[in-house]
């Protein structure tokens, strides 16, 4: 008990070390039977003990935070990359499917409207071929007679 009183005197003189201050905090927060003349200091040291405990927890948190953030960012990037890859594959696959479907089906687009009726497609093809040439025989020269 005498030691605690001495430590208290030293504390109020500002001459205690960290270990001694910790000793005081431990005593007032752990000891159940504190003499009445020392009761007045109990609240002070219990509060100080709680405060230093909170500070330690906060310090631990700040150390952990960057690690968590980096992992989180990495996961987010991986998720975004995976989503982008899936979207890309879907759009490419869709494009290939659309083109292969067109190649299999054949179609004519008239005034922006798409038709796949075989007879209509063929009649439009015939019409387009008859439109580009008035004299098909003109084309016969192409086998090298008048080469550029």
């Amino acid at each position, binding site marked *: 008990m005498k030691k605690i009183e001495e430590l208290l005197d030293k504390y109020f003189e500002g001459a205690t070390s960290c270990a001694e201050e910790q000793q005081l905090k431990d005593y007032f927060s752990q000891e159940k039977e504190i003499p009445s003349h020392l009761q007045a200091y109990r609240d002070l040291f219990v509060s100080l003990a709680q405060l230093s405990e909170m500070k330690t927890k906060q310090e631990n948190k700040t150390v952990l935070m960057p690690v968590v953030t980096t992992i989180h960012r*990495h996961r987010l*990037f991986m998720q975004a*990359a995976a989503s982008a*890859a899936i979207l*890309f*594959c879907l759009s*490419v696959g869709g494009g290939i499917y659309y083109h292969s479907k*067109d*190649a*299999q*089906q*054949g*179609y*004519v*687009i*008239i*005034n*922006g409207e798409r038709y796949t009726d*075989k007879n209509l*497609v*063929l009649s*439009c*093809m*015939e*019409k*387009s*071929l*008859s*439109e*580009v*040439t008035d004299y*098909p*025989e*003109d*084309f*016969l*020269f*192409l*086998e*090298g007679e*008048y*080469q*550029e």
Partner: protein
Amino acid sequence: MKQLFKRWNTLVIMLLIPLCGWAQKDLKIMALFDEYGKKKGSTMVTLSKEMLEAYDMTLYKSITISENEGAIPKAQKYITEDKKKAKNIKEVINKGLVVSGYYQLIAKTDKGMNRFILFKVSRKGSVSLVYIEGKLDSEDLVTLLFMFKTE
């Protein structure tokens, strides 16, 4: 992280490479199909695989554009560019501009394949363009043209 970016970029490049050679992008006229194919006053035809086989073709695309004055100079400009790839040419030129043209292009890779462009601007102001790719030669094409002319 840098390594991950490198891997990701490589993957994207690898996925994009096959797409470059996919379409008939070596010809300027293809832009005409893309630009005017779905517009009002246009008729665009693409044949099915089954129809193509019947005519010994691997690709047939045609477009007729009417009611669009801007399409004619654009088509003429594209034809002027694409005819540089032609080995045989016959043209009707009016006031310095191509109004009718028949072009047999140099084959791309397969020696047995032929490529043709048929082009015409009508008196009514519409423009017609046909692109054909396949094993048919010019004689086959003429037969085809006669066939549709007489029918």
